[in-house]
């Protein structure tokens, strides 16, 4: 049943698929973190217009499925702009923009738990608003946000399974290719599922360990979603 695991060609496909899954997730989460932090700052300090625009952005990316967003990026955007764009790049962009919509909420929550007093303390020592954000608020917020970040990583990794349906070679595509030759449908999907499970569980464990080391004693983010 599971002999296909011994075939070096299939092993190569699985590794290749896993690499794409991992790459897109990690880059996506990273882009999401940078953009999401900027959006969170904008949402806290921005004017009415900025706040409105950010709310619309978040609603668009959190309100519709990543699956649809991926199709929009891969088919609709090139059709409107009338240019060919690399699908890998588009996928990476979609995962980053989507993740930013979620991470904005996490960062905002984290920043708000420490913002009030510490902002005043920072200002009273003569630092500017930007300096206080950069040197006092953000370093702490980034530590508080680690558990939510881990969740985001898990759900984004699971979403990469959609990549197979816009013609990119991810882990699911590897499964389809192997299944197409060996006809071992059930074993193939069990193996593919197990690889996702090991990777996600392992990475979350590492992130939990990092959080235990880095967490600020006494401050925890209470997440309600």
């Amino acid at each position, binding site marked *: 049943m599971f002999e296909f695991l011994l075939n070096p060609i299939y092993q190569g496909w699985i590794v290749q698929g896993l690499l794409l899954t991992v790459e897109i997730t990690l880059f996506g989460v990273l882009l999401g973190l940078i953009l999401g932090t900027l959006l969170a700052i904008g949402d806290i300090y921005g004017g009415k217009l900025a706040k409105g625009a950010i709310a619309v952005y978040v*609603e668009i990316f959190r*309100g*519709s499925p990543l699956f649809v967003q991926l199709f*929009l990026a891969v*088919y609709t955007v090139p059709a409107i702009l009338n240019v060919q764009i690399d699908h890998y790049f588009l996928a990476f962009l979609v995962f980053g923009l989507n993740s930013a919509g979620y991470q904005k909420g996490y960062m905002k929550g984290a920043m708000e738990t420490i913002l009030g007093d510490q902002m005043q303390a920072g200002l009273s020592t003569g630092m500017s608003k930007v300096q206080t954000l950069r040197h006092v608020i953000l370093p702490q917020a980034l530590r508080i946000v680690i558990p939510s970040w881990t969740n985001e990583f898990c759900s984004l990794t*699971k979403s990469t399974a959609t990549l197979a349906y816009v013609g990119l070679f991810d882990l699911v595509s590897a499964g389809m290719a192997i299944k197409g030759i060996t006809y071992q*449908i059930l074993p193939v999907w069990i193996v593919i599922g197990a690889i996702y*499970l090991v990777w996600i569980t392992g990475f979350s464990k590492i992130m939990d360990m990092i959080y235990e080391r880095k967490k600020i004693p006494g401050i925890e983010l209470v997440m309600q*979603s």
Partner: protein
Amino acid sequence: MDVWQQLTFLLGGVPLTLSISVLSFLIGIAIGLPLAFVRAYEKEVAFLVSAYEKVFRGVPEIVLMLLFYFGLGPIFPFPFSNAFFVAAFVLGLRSGANQSQIYRGAIRGVGDEQMIAGVSIGLSKWRAIWHIMVPQVFNYSTAGLGSEYALLIKDSAYVYVIGLAELMTKAIQLKSIPPGDFVTPFVLSAVLYIALTFPIAFSLDRWGNKRKKKIGL
């Protein structure tokens, strides 16, 4: 096809999207609620609950659907060769794992004192849970449940992979009709998904806050 024809075609997929998400939400309650209480009050088997949650947090819904429908379907035609059943089943199991986490937070919110009070007036543990904790747990979990339901609506798009003609599948079908419109179907379906998710999460949260105020929390 003009925009209106496309819209009507897409709207034809909405009932299926809704029925999959409602059914899986209900399955999620039926699984998540007991799991959360087992985890809170039966410490010896709590590790099983946490293993269950890990599995459904760690395996993509798409892979699970492919596994159950194409992998188990030929072996156990009943019930796994029914795409609708597989869709609601997989999303329901996953939602159970998520909802268990939501209720876990809510149980902490209600507090242990009420359990102790219940047991001290002579209720058994599970009767106290059923009559005292369960009704209150929902008040504390409205925000979480709202976003969980929105998540299910979005995740119902995955059933494209097992060929159910819901919103997402209909959009892809529209794309494939020659000469091939790559713009309208996906923009319209994104708008429809937003229209489906936005009011539910929003109003459930509002309802929860009102209710909390009413009973003085």
